[in-house]
């Protein structure tokens, strides 16, 4: 294999960038949220500080095999998905130089399933702790996933049908050729996906899983030190992955890192904004929410795409 060293270097760089962007976005959100709520709030870099602290701490508690594997599982999934997702547009110079990844060897459906892989690990780790709240959280998270998956899949189906491909690069390339982003050529599907993203990011009103406002118990309190640190890292990378995926699919991808950052940030603000103005849903409300208008939009999107 030619230039394997360069590829490995690129992969590392990608990971680091994804991690950094995810962490920063998280910090920004915390700051903004605080400001909206009329608090001072932590600094934007608070997440980095937390991570450093966690990694330097002694890890006190070992919850058994699954507790050990869970963080690994998440980070593995995150890195794998990252390898298979085109961070930048394939036609861009940046891409060919620095992000020569494995995109050509995987497609959209593979990515979808690979993303679940991480959640499964998390769920298992949480399960082994024996904390009842973790299991409750997991069931909520899974239930919610069934909720938002429907509009999301409808949107993706519309996409795949419209472009007659399941490869992400091809989707990006076709958008590029036609010059019309998916979000304009099929706004209904985009809207459906956008609604789904609300659930995917688990901000209020869909922060059912963690229930951070009142529950101070569960996986977060059970895991500590290196475990929590790795989980945080994985989570950040996943946030970046999701945003990138949306950008790739609906906004024609990005030619350069700044473009990527702008697009992702814009997208990211949607759930964040939505969360500021909404109280939390109950699980069944959340599920019904997703099975309501978003699904209808998704169906409309598919119909338009087929037409």
């Amino acid at each position, binding site marked *: 294999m030619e230039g394997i060293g360069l590829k490995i270097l690129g992969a590392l760089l990608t990971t680091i960038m994804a991690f950094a962007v995810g962490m920063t976005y998280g910090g920004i959100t915390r700051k903004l949220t605080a400001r909206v709520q009329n608090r001072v709030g932590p600094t934007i870099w608070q997440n980095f500080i937390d991570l450093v602290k966690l990694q330097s701490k002694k890890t006190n508690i070992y919850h058994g095999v699954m507790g050990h594997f869970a963080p690994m599982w998440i980070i593995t999934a995150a890195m794998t998905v990252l390898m298979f997702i085109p961070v930048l547009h394939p036609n861009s110079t940046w891409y060919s130089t620095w992000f020569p990844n494995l995109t050509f060897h995987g497609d959209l459906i593979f990515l979808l399933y690979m993303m679940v892989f991480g959640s*499964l690990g998390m769920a298992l780790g949480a399960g*082994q702790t*024996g904390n009842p709240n973790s299991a409750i959280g997991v069931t909520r998270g899974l239930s919610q996933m069934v909720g938002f998956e429907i509009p999301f899949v409808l949107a993706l189906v519309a996409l795949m049908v419209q472009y007659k*491909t399941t490869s992400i690069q091809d989707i990006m390339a076709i958008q590029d050729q036609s010059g019309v982003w998916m979000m304009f050529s099929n706004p209904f599907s985009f809207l459906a996906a956008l609604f789904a993203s609300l659930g995917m990011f688990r901000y209020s009103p869909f922060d059912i899983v963690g229930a951070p406002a009142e529950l101070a118990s569960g996986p977060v309190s059970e895991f500590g030190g290196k475990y929590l640190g790795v989980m945080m890292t994985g989570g950040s990378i996943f946030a970046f992955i999701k945003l990138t995926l949306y950008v790739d699919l609906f906004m024609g991808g990005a030619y350069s890192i700044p473009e990527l950052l702008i697009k992702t940030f814009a997208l990211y603000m949607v759930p964040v904004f939505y969360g500021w103005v909404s109280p939390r849903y109950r*699980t069944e409300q959340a599920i019904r929410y997703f099975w309501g208008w978003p699904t209808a939009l998704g169906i409309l999107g598919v119909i338009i795409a087929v037409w």
Partner: protein
Amino acid sequence: MNTLALIILIFFSGATLAYLSSLISNKLPGWVALLTTMTGTVLFYMSFQNEQALSFSIIGLNLEWALDNYTILFAHIIFGLGILASLYSVQYMQNKSQQGSFYANFLLSIGSMFGIIISKDFISFFIFWEIMTWSSFLIVVWNGIGFRKNGIWYMAMSAIGAYAMLTAIVLINSEIGTYSLQAFFNAVQENAIDNLMLVSILLLIGFAVKAALMPLHIWAPRAYSNTPASYTSVFSGALSKMGVFGMGLVLIRVFRFSGLQDNFDYALVSQFTSHVLAWLGGITAAIATLYALVQKDAKKLLAYSSIAQLGYIVIGLAIGTKLAVMSALFLAIMHAVFKGALFMAVGAVERQVGTTDMTKISGLIRRMPWTFFVTLVSIIALAGVPPLSGFVGKWMLYEALITNGNFFLVVVVFFSSTAAFLYSYRILFGLFLGQEEDDTAHVKEAPATMVIPMVILALFLIVTGTYPGIVFEPIAHGMEYLGFTDVTWNMTVLSNVWGDSVNLQYVSTTIGVAFMLALIFLTFKGRKGTRGVSTKDISTSGEIPLEHENLTFQLDFFKPFERAAAPLYKRSITKIYEDVANGLEALFDFTRKIYTGNGQTYAIYVVAFLVTLLIVVQNML
């Protein structure tokens, strides 16, 4: 002697021997069964490359047995699962009574399954089909518990299916004058069968019952969950595939390659039937998944999950494109493997703990690590998450559906496989995670003869996750028998008609590398001072849990989801069936009232009948 006949003979005489040996000792039948299965399997694998055929006649009906590639594909499932299950069974059944009848029926059903697939005529096909049905029925009711609830439904539904099939068979015979399958296919090619659609639909009903397609599935959860686990793995893994086997023949061989596609009516009806069937498969998958995730009993959960998985397979066959059929057959094999492993794992738990009720068990992971490992691997495969082989099948199915234009069906499938995560987690958590029960503290790992078969299956899942080509090869040959030409496959790369592909080798490598990195990092970083804690040692932020209270969350596991999806749960299909059955029974029972018990009334019937006949027949004859 012909090998095929010999294998059948070995299994059937093994069954007799197993029963007879139980008269000597209750322990013997297990070994007899193992020996029989081994002999049969070895014999099969020694000779299946050769052309094999046998034909003879009974009361003037010609029976033909032969091996072909499609048959060999299913024979792999039967013998693979059969031998592992019988190995597993020896220890699993150790302390149970009446092993003789169990093993006799066990061997009978395996033998008859082989008989089904080698049958090249409808008569022996049907005979073996029925032997398979009743032998499996006898195992379902073997422990004598819940006979009425479990057994009767199974038998009744099977009978409906079998009789639909029988009707079709005799109709075919009356049209073409022979029972030969080949003659039937030829007649289909030549458009020589008038009511082909009726026949096909009847046949499909027959197969659909065994494949537990909604709405003919209601027997399955009860039958699966009531069966000893060593057989359930065969039951769900191999026996239900007989329905798939038959559906493949009808849907592909008859519908796709009938040579009648030019006939507009025929094409319309066959297309329509295929579509209906595909949608039925989708609905089956979705509804069964929904039911699976509210189950408390692990076996029942797996039973519903089996139904759902069979739904995917039916979709694949009904869609009928090259990729779809390949995915269906692949899923069929994989389902046999992972569901076999899962039932075995749950059986191991049942044997060691004594129950499969998930609300009564939790935290077994430390006691039964191997079982957990097998369950985990199988569940990942079942959920279709890469890098295990379940993903391969799912991927092909999605691609097949999308490229074929079944957009909404794909959403249904997506929905059900997402919902499948819920029950996947449910079973992992319910049995192995959470706080440990005090009374399961003494539980030990299942004996080696039970663990080894499970682990073999799990390893198979892992290997085929990266190298599905191992399985593609027999599938491709099988598909050629079904009529597809030019079936291509690759050892590690999946691709669809649009040219999109997934390279599983890269996937596995990436995952492996990432996993190793994380493993090294987490395992070797700061191990000092880390202590293992019991599952009861949890952070509860101020609330102090009682020392010996098990806090594991088990009841109403997915209550929020149930509430959200309430309309879907409102009317259980089983309930509808039971209501209809009871109503019909009450109605039928009315006929008994004709026999009033008064002899005079009977005499009046005689006279009235006489007079009626005099009046009616006078005009008829």
